[in-house]
């Protein structure tokens, strides 16, 4: 009798969590799985179209453009962020004055809103009277750079993404570094190993598991990100910064400044599902590749 009551109470304690998660976390996924086989503009009855949405997706140049952009955006961000944050972590892991202050500064962007900072970056990178171009003009470069123009918008978005992410990964690496015993370094330097050798022969192998986990996290997070692009360029100019999940967003909530578009819930669901699958595939490839690398060490 007493036991069942306690069980009931435990279930009651779980219910708010479970119901909210089922209704607002799980149900929407099944909703998407259903509607990706439909054509549905938000009014009238949804029309069942079978696999048509996926056929359309296959021929949809804007989608593949978004896929390419996503890979460039995520790849460019990671290529700089990961080595840079590892370098910062290694530098800050030594006993030095001011390490705490540097850590506080580097991690700060992680606390700030990406959308709000995007507005600030708009003021900074804006081509006509942005702060950077004003600075360039004062230095005598009168034309400045079209930071948000077709040629440089993606680069600018990558720079902003790096700005926001470096401190976070620095901290994760730092935690991993602190797990490496200091006497290994000491005996290595007695044996004459230079700092660069110590980095490649001690730090990297000893950091292995943390490095792999952080990279897995970094890859999935950067493939999914679209908030600052949405605020800054809305995917433009000419789709140059359109990434997968922004494309999905625009199917559901057409943005004002782009040409009049209708809501496409069915096709949008299919695109969202495909994007999730692609991210899953990239993650799996990484997972197996890093396992292979593991056996090499």
């Amino acid at each position, binding site marked *: 009798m007493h036991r069942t009551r306690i069980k009931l109470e435990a279930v009651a304690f779980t219910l708010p969590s479970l119901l909210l*998660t089922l209704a607002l976390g799980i149900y*929407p996924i099944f909703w998407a799985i259903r509607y990706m086989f439909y054509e549905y503009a938000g009014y009238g009855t949804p029309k069942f179209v079978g696999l048509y949405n996926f056929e359309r997706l296959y021929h949809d140049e804007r989608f593949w453009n978004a896929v390419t952009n996503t890979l460039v955006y995520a790849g460019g961000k990671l290529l700089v962020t990961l080595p840079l944050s590892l370098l910062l972590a290694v530098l800050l892991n030594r006993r030095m004055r001011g390490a705490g202050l540097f850590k506080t500064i580097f991690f700060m962007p992680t606390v700030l809103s990406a959308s709000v900072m995007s507005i600030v970056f708009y003021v900074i990178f804006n081509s006509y009277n942005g702060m950077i171009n004003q600075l360039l003009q004062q230095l005598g470069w009168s034309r400045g750079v079209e930071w948000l123009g077709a040629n440089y918008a993606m680069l600018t978005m990558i720079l902003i993404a790096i700005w926001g992410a470096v401190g976070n990964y620095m901290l994760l690496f730092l935690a991993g570094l602190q797990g490496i015993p200091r006497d290994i370094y000491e005996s290595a330097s007695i044996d004459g190993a230079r700092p660069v050798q110590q980095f490649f022969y001690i730090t990297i192998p000893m950091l292995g598991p943390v490095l792999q986990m952080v990279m897995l996290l970094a890859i999935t997070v950067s493939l999914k990100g679209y908030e600052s692009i949405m605020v800054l360029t809305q995917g433009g100019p000419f789709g140059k910064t359109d990434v997968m999940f922004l494309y999905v967003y625009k199917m*559901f*909530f057409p943005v004002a400044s782009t040409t009049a578009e209708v809501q496409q819930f069915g096709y949008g669901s299919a695109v969202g599902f495909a994007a999730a699958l692609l991210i899953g595939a990239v993650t799996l490839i990484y997972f197996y590749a890093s396992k292979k690398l593991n056996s090499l060490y």
Partner: protein
Amino acid sequence: MNRWSKRPSGANVLAGAFLVLVAVVILYPVLMAVLGSFKTNAELSGGGSFWPAHWQFANYSKAWKGANFARFSWNSLFVSVAATAGTLIVAAMAAYAADRRDFPGKRLAIAIQASTMFISIGAVVLKPQFDLMVAVGLHRTLWGVVLILIAGHAGTYFMLASFMRSIPRDLDEAAMIDGSGFFRTFRSIILPLLKPGLGVAGLFVFRSAWNEYILPSVFTMTNPKLQTLTVGLANLRYGVSAAMQTDLMLAGACISLLPLLLVYLLANKSFVQVTAGSVKG
């Protein structure tokens, strides 16, 4: 005393210079936002000096009263406080039940929580979520946004569960033997001991709720009165007025950034520890 001062070698000077350079790049946009928020619009677009010629405190009152940032701030505060409180309560209750009791379906409940952290289909979910809020009549209030934020409590749930595991079971078992019920044990034994965990988790939930942009922007598209700081600010970028009001934008940005910066400076140890702890797992 430390290696830095003992051997100011070339490599150390280089490393120090590099760290300072990165710090300057990281601080630059935030500094420009704060300084710019005190400049006139003409100064901002005309390439004025580093410091404001005259500190324009009026920018803030203009944003606060004229551009509705008082309203936005209140909405942001409401959403963040309600979401934080709700998330902590819901996640703590579920974590308590999962960590301290066995009940049918427990493994499934945990698996469901974990799965929500890995599956992501982007903005697709906003449509069924919105429809659900229409069905229960919450789409015209910020409660809809709050509920959706609370629903995303998986991270907090696992964080609190790991804090809970470090509270000795003997304590609540002793309380139970003394006649304290399941709920009373939770309220008077577990919750007080969980305070540090709740504080840290709350910090993280508050940060993401305060910074949330896409969800409230979708929910308040047709209802400007409910917009939060992030949404109201982003609308200045694509707003109807053609003239760019940079002074207003930066003052608005600072109204949104400064509270969190303050919290961060006061509690950066907690932020830093939990982020680092997540890899040590």
